[in-house]
Each structure stands twice: as structure tokens, then as C-alpha cells.
């Protein structure tokens, strides 16, 4: 019997907007000028939020913080495609998603300053708390998607993680189950090339992450993660598919972590500055601004206005976060169980 080919995998990549701001007209998603300006404003707001967080950390006003610098389009573009009722399972580097969905920025600052109250998602949003453990939240998203199907809801579930997470067992178990049960879940991987000091080619021998989906029996696509139109379009398509019973999709946003892993890291120890400089040229905000300039959606006055608004919103959020009254010491007990055991009640009395 001869050998035969029983399957083959083609890996798709979507690019719409190039670094010079030129867009492929045929692939541009249906966004009007107002939408595009909104996207731009969210990108600027996310970057302003992030820059302030880094400054606050240096002043000792925030704890260890993971910057999103350079990854704003992957976060804002994907979140912009979501409905408020959708369920989101984030990792820890998606503050651009939070901001886009309207998660209060002061809560994010509170959380990164070490206050658990920052993760109490406001009613009306279904964003799960930030998951610090890498990749272990992937099965949760799959279970929630299975639950949405079971209930007959049209909600989709989105799960964010990075390239490092794709090496974990829970990535495999989660994606495998998602494929088996055709769960309405969209996996958004921000492949920012570095898991602290470990580069992409030490995470996997595969040339792309998108192709991993093929092994689980569903579609994977790589998009230019610094191209907000590509990210938005791919996410929208995947969400529609999920809502219509088409099952899961894996989206690899090919992007770059411009900053250190966190404020506790020094990336100059392990990666060449030229690489960072190259990626700065591919900046997601710069290219959208170039595109908008071509379309007469951007000028200096608009830029000043956007920057001022972002700064004011961030000022307000910092003020709110820092003027929040200190939580009571007994609060360490209050959310451990629905009801405290007699021993926990005794311990609670000890602290106040």
C-alpha cells in the first residue's frame, strides 16, 4: 500500500493596514469614520493609562505592573468586536481590552496597587478577574462557552493569553475540549514574541501558533497584531461563527512586547535593542494615525483633543483609585466562603 496524504494544514495570515498606513480596501471591515476615531481614542487612552501606570510604579504608588506597550491594537481591536454580554477570560496583560469594554480604569489602578477590590467586575460586564497563572484559565473559558451553549444563550466567550501559555498543558486540554464540544469560544493569543526572557522559538518549534488549531479540529488564523483592522475583522468573524454554532476559533495576534515583561524585569539583559527598534516602526497607533491622516480623520487639533481627554480620564482614575478608603482588615475573610466556618469567624474577630 502506498503512503498517502490524509490531511494538510494551510496557515492563513491576515494583514489589512500596513505600517505606512495603507489599507487593503477589499479587506477593510465596515467601520465608519466615527468608529475609526473611537478606535484611535481607545488606543491612545490605553497607552496613556499604561504610561501612567509605569510612572506610578516608579514612584512607589503601584505594585509590579505588566506593560501593554505595543500591544494596544490586539487588545482594543478584539474587544471592540465584542458585545457587552459576552464573557471574557483575560490573562494579565489586556488592560486595553478592559478599557475598551468600559471596565473602570480606577479599578485597574486599584488592583495593580494591590487592592483586591479592583477585580470586582461591575454588574453588566462579564469580565473574569485577571488571571495571573499562565494559561490555566483556558479551560474555564471553554467550560463557560459549553454552559452558554447548554443554556441556549447567544453569548460568545473570549479567552486571552500569550505565546508562553501555548506551551502549557491547560492550553492543550482546553483547546482540545473546545474542538470536541464545538464550544462558542474565541481564543485570542497575543504572541508578543517573549515570555519574560524566553523567545518564541524556545516556546515552540512550530513556525506559527495559528496552525496549532488545526490539530484540534478548528480554524486558526494569524493576524498582524499591530493592525487594528485585521484584529477587529478576524475577531468579528470568529464571534459570528461562534454565535451561529460554528464552534471555536484561534486567533494569533502577531505583535511585540515593547516594554519589559513587568516593572520587575529588565529586558535589556536578554534581547537586542535593534529588535525593539524595528518593532517600534510597526507601532499600532502610528499606523492608524497615518491611515486616518490619509482619510482626513486626523489633524493636530484632533490629536491635542484626544491626548487631553485621555490625560484627564487617567488623572481622574488615578485620583479615584488613590482616594478609595482603605479596606477593613476583616475584608480578608469576607469572600473566602459564602459562609465562614466557626474557626474563620474566630480568626476574623482576631483582626478586628
Amino acid at each position, binding site marked *: 500500500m502506498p503512503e498517502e496524504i490524509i490531511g494538510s494544514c494551510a496557515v492563513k495570515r491576515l494583514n489589512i493596514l500596513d505600517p505606512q498606513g495603507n489599507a487593503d480596501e477589499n479587506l477593510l471591515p465596515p467601520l465608519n469614520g466615527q468608529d475609526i476615531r473611537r478606535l484611535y481614542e481607545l488606543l491612545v487612552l490605553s497607552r496613556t493609562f499604561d504610561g501612567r501606570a509605569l510612572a506610578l510604579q516608579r514612584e512607589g504608588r503601584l505594585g509590579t505592573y505588566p506593560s501593554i506597550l505595543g500591544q494596544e491594537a490586539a487588545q482594543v481591536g478584539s474587544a471592540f468586536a465584542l458585545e457587552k454580554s459576552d*464573557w471574557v*477570560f483575560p490573562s494579565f496583560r489586556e488592560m486595553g481590552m478592559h478599557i475598551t469594554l468600559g471596565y473602570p480604569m480606577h479599578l485597574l489602578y486599584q488592583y495593580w496597587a494591590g487592592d*483586591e*477590590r479592583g*477585580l*470586582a*467586575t461591575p454588574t453588566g460586564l462579564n469580565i*473574569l*478577574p485577571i488571571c495571573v*497563572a499562565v494559561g*490555566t*484559565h*483556558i*479551560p*474555564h*473559558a*471553554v*467550560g*463557560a*462557552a*459549553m*454552559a*452558554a451553549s*447548554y*443554556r441556549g444563550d447567544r453569548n460568545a466567550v473570549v479567552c486571552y493569553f500569550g505565546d508562553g501559555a501555548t506551551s502549557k*498543558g*491547560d492550553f492543550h*486540554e*482546553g483547546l*482540545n*475540549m473546545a474542538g*470536541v*464540544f464545538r464550544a462558542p469560544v474565541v481564543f485570542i493569543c497575543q504572541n508578543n514574541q517573549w515570555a519574560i526572557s524566553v523567545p518564541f522559538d524556545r516556546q515552540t518549534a512550530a513556525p506559527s501558533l495559528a496552525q496549532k488549531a488545526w490539530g484540534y479540529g478548528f480554524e486558526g488564523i494569524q493576524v498582524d497584531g499591530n493592525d487594528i483592522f485585521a484584529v477587529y475583522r478576524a475577531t468579528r468573524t470568529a464571534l459570528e461563527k461562534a454565535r451561529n454554532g460554528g464552534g471555536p476559533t484561534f486567533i494569533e495576534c502577531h505583535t511585540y512586547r515593547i516594554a519589559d515583561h513587568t516593572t520587575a524585569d529588565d529586558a535589556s539583559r536578554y534581547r537586542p535593542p535593534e529588535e525593539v527598534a524595528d518593532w517600534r516602526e510597526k507601532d499600532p497607533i502610528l499606523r492608524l494615525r497615518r491611515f486616518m491622516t490619509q482619510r482626513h480623520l486626523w489633524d493636530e487639533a484632533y490629536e491635542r483633543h484626544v491626548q487631553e481627554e485621555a490625560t484627564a480620564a487617567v488623572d481622574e482614575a488615578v485620583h479615584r483609585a488613590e482616594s478609595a478608603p482603605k479596606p477593613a482588615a476583616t475584608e480578608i475573610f*469576607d*469572600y*473566602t*466562603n*459564602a459562609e465562614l*466556618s*466557626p*474557626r*474563620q469567624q474566630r480568626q476574623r474577630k482576631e483582626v478586628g
Partner: protein
Amino acid sequence: MPQMNMVQALNLALRQEMARDPDVLLLGEDVGRDGGVFRISEGLQEEFGVARVIDTPLAESGIVGAALGMSLYGLRPVAEIQFMGFIYAAFDQLCSHAARMRSRSRGRFTCPLVVRTPYGAGIKAPELHEESTEALFCHMPGIKVVIPSGPYSAKGLLTAAIRDPDPVIFLEPTRLYRLIREEVPAEEYTVPLGKAKCAREGGDVTVIAWGSMVERTLKATEGYRVDLLDLQTISPFDEEAILTSARKTGRVVIVQEAAETCGFGAELAATIAARAILHLRAPILRVAGFDVTMPLPKLEDYYIPSVERIRKALDEVLKY
């Protein structure tokens, strides 16, 4: 009242909870078409369908993680891990997420989730099929650990676990699955979590056991006047019941199947020492599994606390 073994009692509890609440569903390896390797979910897929009794891929972390996601969404999943020796793959899900989600989200998201797993020695099974490492989960605030010792408590405790708003690890002693038959009400009932049951009332010695060891301790204490406390839930455990009895008898023997060092008995002994020491008339003794790897069937009987070892400890505290 019908006579049932633990398998039948657990099956009935699942059936009644699924009939009562459409949010209750089952998932795990072989739980559907096969009814579970111990037949605990026998017939439930036929009755409730494949969407509610879900045969999953072979992936313990995925099963517990997905069940957790379902519970976050608002369902009340009951996940099965086929044997306790395989739950370690899901340890991260239980300890890093299930135990903490209520706290992490300041009460916005909760995990009303039950993870059932057969546990314990004495069934002549292969390696990792006879573990009793329940204490591992008692060190994780946020998780409850429940262990029935017979058909009646199995049904009532499982029903209570499914209705509980927090994650519960439910350990089923395999050796007792078909060993004991007793009267079990056909209708729904709960046995409250966190409460011990007095399985025998005496007064000379307080004997504390749970799960698989209750049956053996009942045998061992025949002819002795003991308070035998069956903890039923080990996290949180019924401190008051233990202290009340210990203060009365002044003598305490703890019987646990798990290895002695850092077993749950250590927590009990420390609690009694801290809060009842002036009532004690003898050292607190533990009869436990040895600090060895759980042996394969040829040698397992040397490991499991025997009637003789339990009696030796009773005699020792009585003559002290």
C-alpha cells in the same frame, strides 16, 4: 424504607438533583455511556441526555477547569475524576482557581462546583487507584472536603454538596461502595456539611474517624465504651463536637487511612491540645497509614489501619 448500597444512594442523589435543578450536569471520563467505572452515574445519560451527562476527553485538569468555567457561568456541574490518584493533574485548577475565585472577584464570581472522586485503599487495584490524600485539600481555604462513610450519609451529603454555593471535593470510599447496605430514604434529604455524626456513644474514649475508616473503627470499638465521631466533612470540620466529646472523655484516638505525617489527624490533635488539654487524661494517639508509598495489592493490608492497631491504641489510652 429501601435498602441501598452507596453506589445506589449516590446514583439516586444525582438523579434527584438533576431532576430538581436543570443547572446540575455531570461531566467526566466514562460517566455517560458507561455510567462511570463504578457505575455511580449509571442510566443518567439515558435519562437526561448527552448535553447533561458529558463524556469528556481524558484530561483531568480540563475536566475540572471546564466544570469551573460552567460554574462561573451559573451552572452547578458535578465533575468526576475517575480515581483520586489522578486528581493531582487538576490540583492547580482546584487550588489556584476554584478555591480563590470568590475571593479574587470579591464575590462577583463564585464556583458552586462538586468534584467527586473515588478514594482509598482496600480494593486490590493498580497503582494510584487507592490514594487517600484528603489532607492536601484541607490546606486550601475556600474548598470544602466532604467524605461519606455509608449509603445514608453519601446521599444526604452529596445532595448538600451540590446545593452548596462553594466548591466541594467529594471523596467516595471505594472499599465501602458495595460493602454496606442500609436504609436510605427514597425522597430527597440533605446531611449538613461541616457537621460530625456520632456513630457510637460511649464515654470512655473519643474516637474520631472519617470516610473509609468509620466502618473499620465501628468494628474495632465493639465491646468498648467510646464516642465514635464520624466527621463527614473534614474541611471545615466540626470543632465543637470534637471538643465537647474530648472534654468529656479525656482520651482521644484518631483513626485515619492516610499516611500519618501531616495527615488530617494532626490538625485534630493540635486543635484538641490547644483547646481541651486540661481535660486530657492520656496522650492523643493517631492510628494512621504509614509514611510510605501506598503499596500494591499484595502488601496493602499491612498499610491500612487494622482492627488490631485501633484496639491497641484504645487499650493504650485507657490504661494510661
